[in-house]
């Protein structure tokens, strides 16, 4: 598989800690660097959803392209920039269904049923995963890299690999994990309360 970054290194180093609201504002001003940051933050999420739904890599690529195209066209109307992951997950999944219908994989009746009763647990599950992912993205490094590696990286790097990637002694990973989980929990509970 093509790879732009070493496996497990995640989206970390290139991402600034500028808020999504500010990134969107800069994108609207035509700043391509801010667009690149948004893509770096969310491309894994958007690419993963169609794969998880059973699409092949080619279709997943097309759906990711369409999802980010819709983001670009909708930047002015994103009302909750800090919940961008949820917005993208919703758009992406709709696009999966639209493609399936187009390809005959979903009947009109199934589509109507999905729209009337969109399997709330399933949708909520994605949205919740997206919210967690968004919260992880707001962590400073090295916590962002560590939590991503521990929980979201499908290659499941072991502690020794993570220690090398983070440039830290192996023995420091356990205590660091505890601190990072604490920070993540504070972020997530703060968001839930607001």
């Amino acid at each position, binding site marked *: *598989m*093509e*790879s*732009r*970054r070493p*496996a497990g290194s995640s989206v970390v180093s290139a991402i600034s800690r500028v808020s999504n609201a500010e990134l969107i*504002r800069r*994108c*609207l*001003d*035509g*700043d*391509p660097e801010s*667009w*690149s940051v948004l*893509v770096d933050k969310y*491309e*894994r*999420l958007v*690419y*993963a*959803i169609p*794969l*998880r739904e059973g699409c092949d*890599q080619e279709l*997943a*690529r097309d759906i*990711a*392209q369409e999802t*980010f*195209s819709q983001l*670009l*066209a909708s*930047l*002015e*109307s994103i009302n909750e920039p800090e919940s961008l992951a949820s917005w993208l997950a919703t758009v992406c999944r709709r696009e999966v269904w639209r493609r399936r219908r187009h390809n005959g994989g979903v009947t009109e009746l199934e589509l109507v049923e999905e729209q009337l009763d969109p399997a709330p647990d399933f949708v909520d*599950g*994605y949205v*919740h*995963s*997206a*919210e*967690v*992912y968004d919260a992880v993205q707001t962590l400073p490094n090295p916590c962002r890299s560590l939590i*991503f590696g*521990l*929980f*979201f*990286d*499908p290659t499941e790097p072991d*502690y020794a690999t993570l220690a090398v990637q983070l440039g830290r002694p192996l023995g420091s990973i*356990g205590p660091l*994990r505890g601190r990072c*989980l604490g920070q*993540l*929990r504070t972020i997530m509970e703060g968001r839930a309360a607001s």
Partner: protein
Amino acid sequence: MNELGPLDRLALKFGGGDPNQLAQALRSRPTFQGDLSWLSELLDAAERLPLPEVPASVSASLHDLMPSRRDLRMEDAASIHDSRRDTVLVGARGEQYADGWTAAFSAASADVLIDGEPITANQTDISGHVLVRGEDSRAFTVRATGDYNIAVRTDELGLFHLGSLPNGVYAMSARCHDFEVQWSIEVGS
């Protein structure tokens, strides 16, 4: 999805693989139940959606979606009306607006209307409207550069309010994600 209990799953995730040892460690904390519940939720969210590496060609195509500044379509807007010069239409604003003026500019992708209302001899309140040609309205970033620099966002209909500007000559622009319209205007009566 997973037949293991929450402690077994967490024990596997956090090394050691012994749920009893983990339970002992967690139970020593007063927040045991809350910690267990929160960690289980986190694990659920992550297991639901592992995030594979995106192929480089896919990533590059996503980055390239945004036209760089040099790829923005730049359009000069021509003045098509200025009530300060085209006096025949001034009466349409009514006597109560006698001090105010209206200017209109036209470019290939959008027209721009500017309303000026003098506040003092040297200050004019400027508002306006960017009207996209041939499609639904959209929001823009409007800039005025001159004796005083300001940038504002329009609403989704393209309406904007730059506020009070010192009289003078300004280069103005309205930019959305794929094009920018530019014009210049003298602010003042």
